[in-house]
């Protein structure tokens, strides 16, 4: 075994990459994977997908691609769908470890088109692990984003690359990407399925999306994850309102299929929270960031060996940065769990104190945290191929950053007001104006800004207060209202009722001999 391993490595590494050379372990891998897929053995598929593929990649294909699909096809009856799946993994591995060429980017796009066409036309009868289906959607959006970034760097493109870009202008076209995701959502009827599930007419969440009646879960679950994919694409485009709308059919106040895969869970909440931050719904963002950060804190040890572990840690750090931003603009620390709060203080305590000052240094920190934690924004339109060629890969990011900092600047006087409001129960406008060193009309505008900025408007036009310290003005006197944490007994009892019912059902299910 050791000997064979050595030989395989010799061949793949020292003799250079031969796309037609299939080591025995790869042959065995595809043969088994193919068999498990045909037998719908989700457990074994998952094992091979999650661990064997990683182990082999690590061992044999550290810095070369896997054998070409043509070289393995005859081991798997030249099965069309299996070959598409194999190529999807082949490209994913290539993107993760090497730098794809333009040609490869275009080929990968073609492969996604063929794969999704097959799924959309209902020819697929497989049962695939959620992890794999999530990875497909995730990778599809990632490669789109990566393509946009690549295309936007026009300055050092070769003539040949430009010719290819012109020729294959449909590859990773934004309409194509959005329409595939949308088609998966529609064709899977996932929105209706989730609706019906609420009425108890259908099971989806309860079985984690799997179909135990011999059907396929592929279209349904791809459709489900495509809603998360759409949220992400819209965030990359700066369209936060539409992004949140795309996610609406998934109730993120509860567990669901999106929480069954850690990557999907994190991607969902990261983008949902970010969109809410940009929509100034800070309390909503804080609440969701808090929940997921606590979850990651408690569970990250179980993911240490997962190929996604690094990604989990990175998103974890980014979300702490976003939480620091939210809490600086909207100090609602009581929404934050003790554990999360102490992590936050450790990472950003000092920066958050400086952000409260709203001087130039504070804005530099807002800039730094935003730039570190924001999604990789894209410009979706094709470049101008006219000379001189210019890079525009930073344009989208710069615009979002600028608008965010603009918002932070509009709020710069609010933390000063808050400090004063905290120490008075009533104070006259004249007195507060002199403390703040402004005239009375200016103070009135600051107070109105405070009210406007602390009252979020949701998509139905409903107003909610995000203020920890609130006030009202009666003629010339400000009356301060400190909000007290509301205890949610109702929700607590509801949860307990559901839990109890679950326990009773379980007990009923036990047959005593």
């Amino acid at each position, binding site marked *: 075994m050791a000997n064979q391993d050595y030989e395989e490595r010799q061949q793949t590494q020292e003799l250079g990459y031969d796309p037609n050379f299939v080591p025995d372990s790869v042959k065995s891998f595809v043969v088994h994977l193919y068999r498990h897929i045909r037998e719908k053995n989700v457990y074994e598929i998952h094992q091979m997908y999650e661990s064997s593929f990683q182990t082999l990649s690590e061992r044999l294909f550290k810095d070369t691609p896997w054998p070409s699909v043509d070289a393995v096809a005859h081991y798997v009856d030249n099965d069309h769908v299996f070959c598409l799946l194999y190529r999807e993994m082949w490209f994913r591995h290539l993107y993760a470890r090497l730098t794809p060429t333009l040609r490869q980017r275009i080929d990968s796009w073609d492969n996604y088109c063929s794969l999704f066409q097959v799924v959309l036309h209902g020819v697929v009868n497989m049962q695939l692990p959620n992890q794999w289906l999530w990875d497909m959607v995730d990778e599809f959006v990632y490669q789109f984003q990566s393509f946009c970034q690549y295309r936007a760097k026009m300055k050092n493109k070769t003539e040949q690359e430009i010719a290819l870009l012109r020729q294959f202008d449909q590859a990773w076209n*934004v*309409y194509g990407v*959005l*329409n595939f995701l*949308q088609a998966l959502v529609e064709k899977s009827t996932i929105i209706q399925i989730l609706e019906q599930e*609420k009425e*108890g007419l259908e099971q989806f969440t309860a079985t984690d999306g799997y179909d135990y009646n011999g059907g396929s879960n592929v279209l349904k679950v791809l459709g489900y994850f495509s809603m998360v994919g759409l949220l992400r694409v819209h965030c990359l*485009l*700066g*369209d*936060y*309102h*539409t992004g949140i*709308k795309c996610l609406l059919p998934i109730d993120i106040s509860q567990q669901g299929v999106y929480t069954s895969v850690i990557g999907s869970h994190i991607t969902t909440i990261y983008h949902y929270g970010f969109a809410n931050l*940009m*929509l*100034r719904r800070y309390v909503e963002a804080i609440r969701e960031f808090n929940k997921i950060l606590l979850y990651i804190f408690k569970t990250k040890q179980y993911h240490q060996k997962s190929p996604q572990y690094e990604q989990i840690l990175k998103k974890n750090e980014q979300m702490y940065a976003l939480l620091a931003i939210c809490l600086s603009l909207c100090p609602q620390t009581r929404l934050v769990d003790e554990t999360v709060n102490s992590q936050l203080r450790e990472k950003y305590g000092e920066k958050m104190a400086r952000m409260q000052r709203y001087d130039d240094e504070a804005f530099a920190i807002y800039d730094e945290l935003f730039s570190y934690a924001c999604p990789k924004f894209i410009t*979706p*339109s094709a470049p101008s191929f006219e000379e001189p060629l210019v890079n525009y890969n930073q*344009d989208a990011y*710069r*615009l*979002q950053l*600028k*608008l965010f900092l603009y*918002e932070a600047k*509009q709020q710069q006087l609010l933390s000063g007001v808050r400090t004063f409001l905290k120490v008075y129960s009533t104070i006259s406008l004249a007195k507060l104006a002199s403390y703040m060193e402004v005239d009375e*009309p200016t103070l*009135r*505008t*600051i*107070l*109105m*800004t405070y*009210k*406007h*900025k602390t*009252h979020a*408007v949701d998509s139905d*036009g409903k*107003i909610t*207060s995000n203020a920890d310290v*609130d006030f*009202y*003005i*009666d*003629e*010339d006197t400000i009356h301060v*209202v400190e909000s007290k944490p*509301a*205890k*949610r*007994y*109702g*929700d607590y009892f*509801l949860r307990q*009722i*559901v839990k109890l*019912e679950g326990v009773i059902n379980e007990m009923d299910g036990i047959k005593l001999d």
Partner: protein
Amino acid sequence: MGREREATKVAYTVEQLVAFNRYNPDILPDLENYVNDQVSSQTYSLDANLCLLRLYQFEPEKMSSQIVARILVKALMAMPAPDFSLCLFLIPERVQMEEQFKTLIVLSHYLETGRFRQFWDEAAKSRHIVEAVPGFEQAIQGYAVHVLSLTYQKIPRTVLAEAINIEGLSLDKFLEHQVANSGWVIEKSQGRGQLIVLPRNEFNDPALKKNAADSVPLEHITRIFPILS
């Protein structure tokens, strides 16, 4: 935003396009016409307008500055909703540098920071942009009244006058209307002219603040329906 009138036949089809065919470049002309419809019929659809801005983002060469300006004015009229920012997020920076957009961004800044005096002064200088959209003044006055109602229980007449840019007899008339329809009350304060008592709401009166502990949203209760039945 609650201001929408009943959907006309045309509006219905455009809304459908946005719902079912939103990633299709062919609906661009329909959406542009729909912006003009919204202007003339004083209706509003954020979803349709964002959809159009998105199509412009995908194909910048098709962008019409005039349409974008109208969308932005409509978005200002939707304050306190964050629609104006939502639109700006989708408009390339070099386009935002155009003079008319710079003006609109300044107007938005004044509204966002409660500086109504400066807002009305600036708006007066840019009549050609804002007067192209009927109902602009009333919509901004509506926003001003909204922010004032969040902030004040009682407000001096002069402060109100400045925020909504109405004075003298017209203001008397406006107040008369609000007294009759919206529960406003006018008081005399000692030596300082009129004082307007605004209706109490949960934001300017802590006593009316709904106790979150007492209210459970219906969809949470529906979770136990199967158990109850």
